[in-house]
């Protein structure tokens, strides 16, 4: 049998099919699963993938032997609006459900544990990007439709207290607002 010959050629510990695929074109994502024991691994596979495909792929491409049972589930996409990639004018009424993702969990014959996550995220500039996104969010709230719901801001309160203190102590002399340019600038 041709399938037996293929088995002898690659020495796979399972029965292989007759179809030979030389130039496949898909991606496999190896997930980090801390909640699973070290002898289990989980992957995100193409939606058309089967358990037999995964077992064959892992053996022939990565020389990883897996146990007898592979578990799989499809995670349905969340309904969202907009398009990917987003056009110049975002279309907010384009409601759609993106394609789902298929996840498969295999039992490994030899255990594998992911290396630890990096604790210092300076090479990725996490600090600055987090600060930037928080500031963007705060600005968006300030100019957004719910701006009048925001309460008094701490920085303004502190600045006003300092100004009042300086005026009372005589360090600064009060001047009319117009001379300082109050009301002239366009801003919120």
């Amino acid at each position, binding site marked *: 049998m041709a399938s037996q010959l293929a088995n002898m050629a690659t020495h796979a510990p399972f029965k292989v099919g007759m179809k030979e695929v*030389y*130039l*496949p*074109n898909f*991606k*496999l*994502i*190896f*997930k*980090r699963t801390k909640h699973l024991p*070290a002898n289990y*691994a989980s992957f*995100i596979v193409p939606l058309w993938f089967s358990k037999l495909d995964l077992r064959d792929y*892992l053996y022939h*491409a*990565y*020389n*990883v032997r897996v146990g007898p049972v592979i578990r799989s589930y499809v995670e349905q996409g969340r309904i969202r609006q907009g398009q990917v990639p987003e056009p110049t004018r975002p279309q907010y009424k384009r409601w759609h459900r993106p394609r789902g993702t298929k996840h498969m969990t295999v039992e*490994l014959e*030899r*255990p*594998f*544990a*992911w*290396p*630890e*996550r*990096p604790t210092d*995220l300076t*090479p*990725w*500039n*996490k600090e600055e*990007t*987090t600060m*930037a*996104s928080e500031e*963007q969010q705060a600005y968006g709230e300030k100019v957004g439709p719910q701006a009048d719901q925001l309460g008094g801001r701490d920085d303004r309160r502190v600045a006003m207290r300092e100004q009042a203190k300086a005026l009372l102590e005589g360090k600064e002399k009060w001047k009319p607002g117009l001379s300082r340019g109050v009301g002239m600038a366009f801003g919120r």
Partner: protein
Amino acid sequence: MHCTGAFLLRSALIPSIPRTTTATTASLPAAFLLPAFTTTTPQPTARATFSTTPSAHARKDGNRNRGVSALRHTGIGKKQKLSVSLKDLPRPVLDPQRRSKVQVDDDHGLWDFLPTARTALRTPDELHAHGRGWTVPELRHKDWDDLHRLWWVCIKERNRLATQWYEHDRIGGMDGGAGMYGEHEGAARDKEVRKTMKGVRHCLTERWYAWENARVAGMEDGEVDLYAEVERGEAAYLPRGEESVEPVSLGSEDDARTDPSRTLPPPNSASAASEARV
């Protein structure tokens, strides 16, 4: 009032008045009743009961697991004897610091999904350290085995980049484009890999078309025998020789133009003048 013989005998035995007279008086039972007292019959048992419920030990139940359920949390039954006693059960180590580390083999296949340095995530500098993809003129020199190997190197690199992208989002958060650095560098690297794969496919397609054109030409050519088995010594090219060199005359108007014996084209001024149109 029931009139059994025992009741009458007992009532006869109980002395109703204190004994003041001698033994010969009526306090003692009569002598003719003596045989009744000497009988040795046992206490009468209930042979025929009124209830139909069977008694407790009617049948021995051989099922030691009766009433024991893990789903209903009944616990261990009274008759159950486990091979391990409760105090000998191993206890899990709840503190992650005290757990032993997993020994991962150096040659494990899944290391190919992670960066070469065996860290969890590549830095943007590591991602940026790549060259350009292979161009088609460079790939045309390579044979099928090399191209096939290169294709699979590209596939594995794409898997590595996809794993990186997923882990990156998990750590940094998908802030709608404002996450950590590294996304742009990863995308640029993936683009070069895809260019190489496109070049490989282009080369193989070119080669296939060249082969297909040659095959069709060989099928149509009378001098070539594609079904010849060269190993056995059969000739694939069978030239027909000199007789096929002469040009064939088909008797068309074009023969006058292609006849090699003629030197000048014939004058066609008369026909041109009659056919002239204003």
